[in-house]
């Protein structure tokens, strides 16, 4: 079985971009039963659109229903499950028994166990397989050695996180947000209390300095371990981040797609080449997470620094006129004539241009592209795919 690259999507455009840029599947949240409350804006009609789009590409759509259900949350659950089955989603991702059992009783939906259950061993993976769960998402606390051991004995397919944010707590077990701001961390309201600034005291003696005791984790970046995971035959490699931008999703998905394709083609490049590509959109410091076992200082984020992406997303290609060699770009961020632009295409090809002049749709020459969503025309001698990303080289 070929390993799947699974990407997050907070809306329909992001989902399509993720699929276009190389994801084999996307996971999304509906409006009610998902954890990423703000990112979960898929109405049923949009899920249908996405499923149709993905299936035309022989790709898959999974729907997250991974909140920890209270009794009040179960209203409408049965109808929703039936709707998802009717739409033809490829699986649901859940952690509450009420969802698992009702889905089994009412539908033939494929079931994946969410990382909210913090599953870290074969025994539990096989239990859930026997309960009808086809795939389990491993806890981010599992090391590569543990993943190897679980993969060798698990009856369930394994899904492993390879990129993105990490809970500092075991997932599903934290109520910091509940207690500090009355927002339920396990029902979509997490306030990221673990990322705030703290002082540390021993007895009554202040140990820290000016609230520099921090618990934040750097984001996960598992580029160095993809080869191992592919060797093992892990079913799915998962990227986190349903709140992330189009540029981030396309770039990160594209980098991992390149790596996986290179692996299968037997022509892996140096790891730094893929890492360099990710840095074009990554705005948080990254680390290897728990892949090597226990966490060290290098995996923690102590000074709240953010990385500056090496490329700025300035537009998306709407179309290309071969006859006039004109590129139509939908503006997303400010750029000027003379800026060096890199165009990143869904087929993983790159083109660099430095247009001396830019025009609006009325062919008026502009001194800058200032207005979001404005169509900008530039000369480009090379045929460019629609929905390519245009980045300014900083």
């Amino acid at each position, binding site marked *: 079985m070929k390993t799947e690259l699974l990407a997050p999507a907070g809306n329909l455009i992001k989902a399509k971009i993720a699929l276009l840029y190389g994801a084999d599947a996307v996971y999304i949240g509906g409006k009610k039963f998902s954890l990423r409350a703000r990112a979960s804006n898929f109405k049923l009609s949009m899920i249908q659109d996405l499923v149709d789009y993905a299936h035309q590409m022989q790709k898959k759509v999974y729907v997250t229903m991974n909140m920890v259900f209270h009794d009040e949350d179960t209203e409408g659950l049965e109808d929703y499950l039936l709707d998802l089955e009717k739409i033809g989603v490829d699986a649901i991702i859940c952690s509450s028994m009420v969802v698992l059992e009702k889905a089994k009783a009412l539908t033939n939906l494929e079931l994946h166990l969410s990382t909210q*259950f913090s599953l870290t*061993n074969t025994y*539990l993976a096989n239990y859930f397989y026997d309960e009808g769960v086809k795939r389990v998402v491993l806890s981010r*606390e599992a090391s590569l050695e543990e993943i190897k051991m679980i993969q060798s004995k698990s009856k369930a397919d394994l899904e492993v996180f390879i990129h993105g944010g990490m809970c500092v*707590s075991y997932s*599903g*077990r934290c109520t910091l947000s*509940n207690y500090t701001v009355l927002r339920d961390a396990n029902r979509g309201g997490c306030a990221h209390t673990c990322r705030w600034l703290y002082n540390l005291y021993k007895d009554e003696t202040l140990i820290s300095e000016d609230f520099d005791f921090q618990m934040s984790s750097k984001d996960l970046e598992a580029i160095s371990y993809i080869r191992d995971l592919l060797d093992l035959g892990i079913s799915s490699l998962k990227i986190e981040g349903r709140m992330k931008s189009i540029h981030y999703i396309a770039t990160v998905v594209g980098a991992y797609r390149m790596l996986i394709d290179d692996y299968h083609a037997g022509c892996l490049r140096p790891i730094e080449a893929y890492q360099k590509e990710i840095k074009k959109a990554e705005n948080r410091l990254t680390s290897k997470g728990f892949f090597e076992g226990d966490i*060290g200082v290098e995996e923690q984020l102590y000074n709240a620094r953010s990385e500056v992406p090496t490329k700025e997303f300035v537009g998306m290609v709407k179309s290309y006129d071969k006859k006039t060699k004109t590129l139509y770009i939908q503006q997303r961020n400010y750029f000027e004539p003379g800026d060096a632009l890199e165009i990143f295409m869904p087929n993983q090809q790159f083109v660099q241009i430095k247009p001396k002049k830019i025009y609006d749709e009325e062919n008026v020459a502009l001194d800058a592209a200032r207005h979001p969503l404005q169509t900008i025309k530039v000369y480009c001698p090379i045929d460019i795919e629609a929905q390519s990303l245009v980045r300014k080289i900083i």
Partner: protein
Amino acid sequence: MNIVVRIKNQEEIKHLADLGADVFLLDTDVITTKAIYPLEQNSMSHVIEKIKKINKKVYIFINKMIHETDLQILNNWLFFLKTQDVDGLVINDFTVYVMARDNDLSDKIIYQPGTMNTNAYDVIYLKDKIKGMTLSKEITLDEMKAMMDSSSDIEYSLLGHGYIDMFYSKRKLIKLYSQHKDLENFQTHGKEFTIEEKTREGIFYPILEDNHGTHIFRDKKLESFNEVKHLPFHDLFLERLFMDDQEYFDAIRTYHGQLSPKDFLDQYGQEYHKGFFYTRTEKTKGEKNEN
């Protein structure tokens, strides 16, 4: 209702029983996190015997998250516990249930994951599998009642008193910080640490690190003197961490009826609260509690 207590040493067992303790929750030396009095198997046998001699019950606390590398250790412990006269195994990770089931111990299991037992369907799923379930710490009393009304075929319990934990990380956060700051010979395991959030000055959350990771607790202690009178809990767990001995003893006496809640709260009440018994949390990042 059984009053379930934790011990600091063997010598106090009789005293705690005299105060009203019905069940003693014992820590293992390797698969218990937040342990107060960790016991290896030989010592545990001795302590179990001591408790049984005074006709009290014994629960074993197996609350570590079970990683692949812990499976053999867990199996060894369950094999040992099968030979012991224990009345319950209080577990956090559902893996322990699955392995206990395979060792014919599932009727001892009390599932206490902290956050996962939140609806009546959880009751239906668990009631024919295990002995008991501890209702989640972040749900309201009304939600607890609805769950308990859904079936009487399982023993319900409440973690109802003391400093309640709200965070369990595999990361050793105090140790990592001490390394980050180059604090030499800094002892990171101990019950004397607190953290204070920048915008909440004067509020101190206990933080505890051990070999299994880090736990953070609420700043105030939970009490449920009135609440437990109205719901048919089988077991009431009294957390002892960070609490003075005398206060813990008085709490046991109060739940046992030897001391009035008013007298207890008059003496210790300023540091107590009602948790989420009457407070609902929001599901989404709405306006009301936006930070």
